[in-house]
């Protein structure tokens, strides 16, 4: 009984902490504007939508990985999956939750686009260094 209560409390707190942590990661990239080039490649010209996330992630996999953003991208991908789950369950009957999940999914897509921008810039730097050498 006691273990059951602790389990339920822990999972509830875990969800709260995890969502807030992911939002703190996303918040840093939300202010960063996308270059025209990345806007063209990703198709995110005005506002991102949750539907863009999978496509941007595929583009991210085409770029050389940098270890420093790998963990963050994995965390946001897990967050996106969680949002998809909420969208297909609770959000179906609660419009406010639906609006919230759509907004968050769009933020995830924008985060991925900013990560793509960083990886492209990083690849360019590496190429320039190789050319110089």
């Amino acid at each position, binding site marked *: 009984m006691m*273990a*059951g209560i*602790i*389990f339920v*409390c*822990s*999972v509830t*707190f*875990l*969800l*709260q*902490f*995890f*969502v*807030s*942590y992911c*939002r*703190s990661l996303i*918040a*840093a990239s939300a202010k960063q504007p996308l270059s025209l080039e990345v806007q063209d490649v990703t198709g995110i010209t005005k506002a991102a939508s949750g539907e863009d996330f999978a496509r941007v992630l595929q583009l991210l996999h085409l770029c050389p990985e940098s270890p*420093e953003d790998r*963990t*963050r991208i994995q965390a946001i991908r897990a967050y996106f999956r969680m949002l998809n789950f909420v969208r297909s369950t609770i959000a179906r009957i609660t419009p406010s939750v639906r609006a*919230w999940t759509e907004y968050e999914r769009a933020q995830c897509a924008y985060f991925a686009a900013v990560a793509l921008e960083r990886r492209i810039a990083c690849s360019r730097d590496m190429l320039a260094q190789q050319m110089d050498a």
Partner: protein
Amino acid sequence: MPGLLENFLWIACTLLEVFVVVCALKKGAFRRYLILNLYMAASVLATVGRYRVLTHYGYTSSEYLYFYYYSDALLTIFLYFALTSLYAHVFSDMNANRLVRFGAVGLLAGTALFSYLVVEQSNARMITHFVVELSQNLYFVGLVLTYVLWAAIMKLRESRTQLIQLVLSLGVYFSLLAATYALRNMFPSKSSLFLSFIQPIGFVLPLAWAYAFWKLSSDQLISPARLAVVSR
């Protein structure tokens, strides 16, 4: 002996913990978050000690078992004080350091007493049962305290990104461990399965703290209202 995967995870986690301390030193965050960094250093030392005991006495020896659980209990107490040091950061403007320290010691003593009362009935290896029980209870107490701290951050509109990320990652870590131990107590026959989760969970703190120290500057700010699960 632990398998190849366990060994790899063990080494990787230890290297990551070393990296956290190096990052904090390089970025000037070592003294600011002294107890957090000392905890990471103590965790590295405990791993080295565990490795020595393991190679000397063997994986299934009682020496290794004792060393593992006793060092784990000490590290949990260390982490508990690391959490209270984050309280001191959040309440620094209110000069509540003494109150926080007093409350932390009182709560630790209360948790120890509760753990003692739980294991009092078992005659054999009572101290070992006590340290295991104390660790498990401290994870849950730590989780509740982290949640209270998070509520205080939201209420006081604390905006230091680095501090917020340290608190949130600690919350994720405590809740994962508390949930795992609760599952283990609910289904004792599947104990070994749930215990296998502990090692991957050990990556959460060093990964998140390394990112917080390496990538975020101490003056970087964020609006806490953006982070609330229910928007304000």
